[in-house]
């Protein structure tokens, strides 16, 4: 069967080159990097090399990189550790379209008496900067806003936001899980204090992430224990995955140009092809300030789950913001925050491409999807 994978914002294929560099650490190089003997000690060098590779991708100093188990851990560490370090009076400012790994800790903080502000977005998914400006004026806060949205690909103006937060004297964390590897990021230019990234969104395996913590940022450790990661995260290092993440970041830097040119061209071809062949179809989110790989498209009058199942039968993997696919009863919080009408929200499909996709695959989707849409619309009482 054909296998056209266009769900890369969910997870990516592990690059074969990444697997190659990981394998020795399941074999002969199994020592503990903390050991005071050559056998373990030689492993520590590889961790530091990986740390430098991750740092290089975002313009950080290697000492500012903390390895974590995933993007969600990075987000939890930044928000919960940051709030704890700042003391009880600090507010948390975030947005209504964040990933669950931020909204979860935010709601937890609110339930325990903390003050949480969720900034809204407009119809194109762009942050209400005026509202952010007003909130920043209300006193010291930890601000956590995503670099790019996982569902729509919409990019927040992080340079501008970071400057605003700095100006207000607050602390700024950005969940850049979807942005790293797809957009050029340089923390020397953008004054973020903390930045989350995840391995499996950039062709490293699941189970590894990192948090960038700018020197001097107040942050309590999230996992208490040993001296690993300079005492910021206890626990023996996940050596093979750390090495894999390093390699993946190295490759991401190399392919960044292709991501913003060839992958973007494929995405545009897909998008225009579908808009052209399927009536009553619209794009969700800002079409300019958007990740080059993401297309979130709504097919009116039908429900996303049916589209996904039919596509899956044809070998096409994508995802949906519909209620039925999430197990909840309402469509995605991102799509709702944008005020997308219900007629379109339930039938939203996200295609997210990567450097492994081809023009042939895009054309196959453009050819396969319209009959599926027509078929499901024939069943719908609203057409």
């Amino acid at each position, binding site marked *: 069967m054909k296998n056209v994978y266009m769900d890369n914002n969910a997870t990516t294929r592990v690059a074969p080159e990444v697997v190659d560099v990981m394998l020795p650490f399941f074999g002969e190089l199994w020592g503990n990097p903390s050991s005071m003997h050559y056998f373990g000690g030689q492993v520590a060098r590889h961790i530091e090399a990986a740390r430098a590779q991750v740092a290089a991708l975002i313009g950080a100093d290697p000492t500012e990189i903390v390895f974590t188990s995933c993007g969600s851990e990075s987000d939890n560490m930044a928000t919960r550790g940051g709030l704890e370090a700042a003391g009880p009076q600090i507010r948390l400012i975030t947005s209504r379209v964040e990933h669950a790994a931020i909204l979860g800790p935010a709601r937890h903080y609110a339930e325990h008496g903390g003050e949480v502000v969720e900034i809204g977005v407009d119809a194109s998914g762009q942050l209400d900067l005026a509202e952010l400006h007003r909130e920043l004026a209300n006193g010291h806060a930890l601000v956590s806003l995503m670099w790019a949205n996982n569902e729509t690909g919409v990019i927040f103006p992080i340079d501008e936001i970071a400057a605003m937060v700095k100006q207000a004297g607050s602390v700024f964390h950005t969940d850049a899980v979807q942005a790293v590897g797809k957009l050029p990021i340089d923390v020397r230019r953008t004054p973020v204090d903390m930045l989350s990234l995840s391995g499996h969104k950039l062709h490293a395996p699941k189970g590894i992430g990192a948090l960038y913590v700018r020197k001097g940022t107040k942050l309590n450790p999230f996992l208490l224990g040993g001296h690993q990661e300079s005492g910021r995260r206890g626990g023996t290092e996940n050596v093979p995955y750390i090495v894999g993440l390093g390699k993946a970041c190295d490759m991401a830097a190399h392919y960044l140009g292709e991501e913003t040119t060839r992958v973007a061209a494929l995405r545009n071809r897909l998008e225009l092809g579908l808009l052209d062949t399927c009536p009553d179809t619209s794009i969700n989110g800002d079409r300019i300030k958007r990740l080059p790989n993401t297309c979130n498209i709504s097919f009116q009058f039908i429900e996303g789950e*049916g589209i996904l199942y039919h596509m899956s039968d044809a070998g096409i993997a994508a995802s949906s913001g519909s209620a*039925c696919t999430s197990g909840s*009863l*309402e469509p995605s919080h991102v799509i709702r925050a944008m005020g997308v009408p219900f007629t379109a929200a339930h039938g939203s499909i996200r295609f997210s491409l990567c450097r492994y996709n081809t023009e042939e695959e895009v054309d196959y989707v453009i050819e396969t999807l319209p009959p599926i849409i027509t078929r499901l619309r024939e*069943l*719908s009482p609203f057409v």
Partner: protein
Amino acid sequence: MWDYTDTVMDHFKNPRNVGVIENPDGVGEVGSLACGDALKLTFKLADDGHIADAKFQTFGCASAIASSSALTEMIKGMTIEAADKVTNQDIAEFLGGLPEQKMHCSVMGREALEVAIENYRTGKTSKTILQGKIICNCFGITEDEIKDVVRNNGLTTAEQVTNYCKAGGGCGGCIHKIDEIIENIQAEIKKAATLAPAKAMTVLEKIRLIEETMEREIRPMLRRDGGDIDLIDVDGDRVVIGFRGMCAQCHVADFTMKEVVEAKLREFVSPTLTVEESRS
């Protein structure tokens, strides 16, 4: 992916009886775009009073489409009286079961059928029929609809009610009202159960009532933790039971489960019962 049965996938991929019957004898329209699913059911009667044809149009997920398709297949050839007895459980069973969070799809089928039959009998439109006391404003669910799913499916929590008919799944503002409805229904069941055994019971009646009480009040609780219970003997007021599965190995069984079982049986069967546990 959802754990759908082959029958669900078959009815989703090859839906039967799609469309709208012209000049139908009954029309039932339930749900809305806002809710995420909606169903329009139409049927036509033959001269002998049997349902000659039924068709549907559905907006919704795979299991909503499958439930609608199954419903039309089930009611074709039935009399109105027989069709009126088709429950959401019957639809789910026809499909070989539905995931718990998707049971509302079968409930939507039952509702459309109910509305279509009432439309046939009274000529009222779907909108008029559905105008009841709305409890859940987000999904437009009435008190009667909630009562029906609670009674017909033996639901005990608001979360289950949300899975079965969506009520409470939006803003959550009506959860306390749903809790109240569940409480009232449970009180009704309790009252009915305690009134019944007032007259003298035969041994057979007593055993049946004990079995019923165990099935309704005790087993669901035990099965949640991987256990079960068997009735072994009834001798006058002495009830002998055996715990199975996880419960059999549970060291605290003596002073917790036995007491719970005894309390429930005294409450619903007879206040003079004693419970003993068989270790065989």
